[in-house]
């Protein structure tokens, strides 16, 4: 089969031994690759109830069938999958750049890390040769420093490195894995799992050829997509970038501001994408094989943060900006750079900083608790200092680095209600009180609060539905988007390119066929997307998550939007949420409790996983009986 390398690498960090097993062809067809294959392998490779930080929790790194080809945006992705130390359910996060291409050329569809190294190590995958090397000299280094040091040590400047920063080493639950200095597999704490294994970095060199099943037709299709990528579907990403959302969301009053105390920000103009591009964007660069290029590299030209250089996107800008009440782009860029330095999810870090500020303003945290930080909303210095605290785990940062949910519980005194998260994962830049299709998507997302599991916000933001009401049919909108998004993340093509697949599943199935030579219809691929959402749900059910966890942050359900304007008074009631969940579960063919039915699993060819939904007590006790 073309496209796939056909091999899975197992690395046992406890013993230092590695071995290769062939990729199960049925898994490839059913779960495609990327997060789909990763989640299925996670289910197989872990025991129920496994502690995310234990050596037994596998950290799974995958490529997709398209990785390593010239497919625009699709050539370059990789994904990390594990049990999340934030949600205690599915953790998964993707990143692009060039790392995934290298891993595919080294000949692997997936790498499964288990065990725990005795001391800090990095793994050096040089085609077939796999070694654990001492990383004691890399302790405390940022991902960028680590990457440079490893290239120097191995004497090859073209190898690719994905690594954790100091926060990952210290098991900050929002730690991420960063490749090529600014590309992060950011969400759900994959860097913390890596840290728990004493694994500092993964360095890869791959020399193998990548070929596709139908090269001529494939190149015709590439050419067509190069053209599509110059068109309207990607215009936003190539010009202002996602930061264009600031003014759009602000005008709709759907931009969570000051830890969800407001839904619009008076300083929005100052932190707009327009302003960012005019004053800070120095160059827009591209990932390997991409014909689009979106990575807005910003440089601060003057002032206290002069010389800071990093990539900016809407989500991270929002989190450290409006969500903290901060209206200074230079400080936001500095905050982003610090997140990259320490290796923490910049969305989560901004949300936690905003949470700490809310606690401070409400007297739950004092200046003494914060060691002198005057954490008023809008104090840009305080925002930067809080991010530093989280990254180093010093002082209050030790608690904050646990993520907003656990931090809220530890701080107590009502802080729990100020912690805006779903399933332990921090919220993102869409005010769910005012976007009710998105609210459903966020509530049911298998990796916790997230806009990238469904993109359901687009119906609300673009006015395709009445965003302030709930009604039958929202469940189907979310389901259809979820099924498509899981395929995007399993082929691993870039989300920013999703609009170029004019015929959606049909285009994606054609791509899959041309690369792999395996005939797959649009319906087959749609069903694979549905299957992957079900397998993720099954993992979460096995780990004890269910309807009770498909919920919304406290303020979304209890604090109506106070701002004058279109969103005034909006919030989501329990009744509305229940209505949405019922509609969604029914559309999915799940029970009222949100469990896939036996019939649904049979329909999707997942008979082997039926024991999970039949289990009454211990999740996996009946496994193997059928």
């Amino acid at each position: 089969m073309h496209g796939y390398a056909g091999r899975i690498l197992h690395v046992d960090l406890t013993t230092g031994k590695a071995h290769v097993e062939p990729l199960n062809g049925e898994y490839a067809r059913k779960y495609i690759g990327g997060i789909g294959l990763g989640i299925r392998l996670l289910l197989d490779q872990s025991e129920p109830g496994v502690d995310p930080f234990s050596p037994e929790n596998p950290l799974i790194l995958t490529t997709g069938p398209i990785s390593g080809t010239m497919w625009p945006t699709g050539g370059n992705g990789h994904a990390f999958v594990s049990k999340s130390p934030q949600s205690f359910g599915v953790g998964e996060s993707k990143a692009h750049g060039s790392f995934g291409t290298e891993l595919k050329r080294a000949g692997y569809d997936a790498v499964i890390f288990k065990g725990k190294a005795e001391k800090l190590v990095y793994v050096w995958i040089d085609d077939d040769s796999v070694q654990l090397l001492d990383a004691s000299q890399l302790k405390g280094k940022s991902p960028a420093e680590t990457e440079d040091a490893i290239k120097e040590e191995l004497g090859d400047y073209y190898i690719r490195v994905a690594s954790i920063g100091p926060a990952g080493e210290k098991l900050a639950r929002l730690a991420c894995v960063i490749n090529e200095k600014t590309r992060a597999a950011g969400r759900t704490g994959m860097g913390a799992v890596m840290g728990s294994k004493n694994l500092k970095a993964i360095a890869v060199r791959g020399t193998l050829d990548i070929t596709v099943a139908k090269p001529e037709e494939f190149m015709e299709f590439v050419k067509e997509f190069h053209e599509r990528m110059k068109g309207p579907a990607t215009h936003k990403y190539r010009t202002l970038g996602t930061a264009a959302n600031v003014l759009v969301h602000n005008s709709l009053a759907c931009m969570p501001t000051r830890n969800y105390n407001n839904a619009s920000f008076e300083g929005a103009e100052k932190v707009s994408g327009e302003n960012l591009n005019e004053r800070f964007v120095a160059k827009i660069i591209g990932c390997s094989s991409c014909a689009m290029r979106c990575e807005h590299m910003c440089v601060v030209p003057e002032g206290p943060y002069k010389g800071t250089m990093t990539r900016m996107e809407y989500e991270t800008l929002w989190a450290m900006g409006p969500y903290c009440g901060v209206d200074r782009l230079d400080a936001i860029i500095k905050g982003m750079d610090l997140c990259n330095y320490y290796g923490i999810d910049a969305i989560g870090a901004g949300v936690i900083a905003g949470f700490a500020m809310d606690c401070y303003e409400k007297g739950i945290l004092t200046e003494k608790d914060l060691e002198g930080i005057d954490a008023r909303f809008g104090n840009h210095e305080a925002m930067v200092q809080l991010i530093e605290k989280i990254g180093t785990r010093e002082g209050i940062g030790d608690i904050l680095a646990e993520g907003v949910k656990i931090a809220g519980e530890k701080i107590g005194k009502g802080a729990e209600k100020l912690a805006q998260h779903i399933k332990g994962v921090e919220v993102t830049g869409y005010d769910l009180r005012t976007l009710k299709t998105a609210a459903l998507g966020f509530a049911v997302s298998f990796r916790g609060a997230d806009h990238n599991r469904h993109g359901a916000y687009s119906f609300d933001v673009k006015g395709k539905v009445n965003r302030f009401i709930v009604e039958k049919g929202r469940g189907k909108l979310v389901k259809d988007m979820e099924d498509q998004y899981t395929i995007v993340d399993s082929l691993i093509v870039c989300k920013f390119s999703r609009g170029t697949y004019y015929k959606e599943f049909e285009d994606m199935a054609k791509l899959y066929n041309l690369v792999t030579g395996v005939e797959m219809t649009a319906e087959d691929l749609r069903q694979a997307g549905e299957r992957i959402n079900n397998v993720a749900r099954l993992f979460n059910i096995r780990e004890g998550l269910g309807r009770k966890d498909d919920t919304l942050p406290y303020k979304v359900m209890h604090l109506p939007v106070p701002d004058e304007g279109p969103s005034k008074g909006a919030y989501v009631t329990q009744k509305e949420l229940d209505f949405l969940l019922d509609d969604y579960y029914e559309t999915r063919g799940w029970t009222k409790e949100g469990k896939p039915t036996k019939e649904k699993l049979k329909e999707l060819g997942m008979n082997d996983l039926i024991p999970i939904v039949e289990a009454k007590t211990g999740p996996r006790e009946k496994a193997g009986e059928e």
Partner: protein
Amino acid sequence: MVKIHERKFVSADPEKCVGCQVCEYICSLTKEQAFNPLKSRIRVVRINQLINLAVTCRLCEDPPCVAACPRDALTQSEETGVIMVDEDKCNGCGWCIEACDYGAIMLHPENKVVFICDLCQEQGEPQCVKWCPEEALDLVTSDVLAQKARITAVKKLFQEALKTAPVAP
């Protein structure tokens, strides 16, 4: 022999190049029927996120690679200026690689002989130039490069002049 002023080579515009490696992919596909940057005649260098440039053979006058080859495996085409490799003579010793100031000569990972950009003679035009999404690559002579640089410089001067002239500090 083609005069140096008429000799065309592939050059990347540092203002436009974003480091996407599309040139590497199309080169290896064209020449080796596979996607593999290690087999590309053009390679991308990213010093940091702001500094990206694709580099390939510049068809030098009196090319040091040709002079360095102890086995006379390299010759420069009189017609085009392209450096040609006699694969029977080349034993992969790497003297030419060392002699090239631009890192434009690579050792083939399997055949163990060197390979160099030949401007896609068979295809009639360099495929990297054709495929570059940014139009950052160009097949140019040194003269044209100099012209372009002059125009850019003058434009910049004018920009500054326009910016500063009407507004008093």
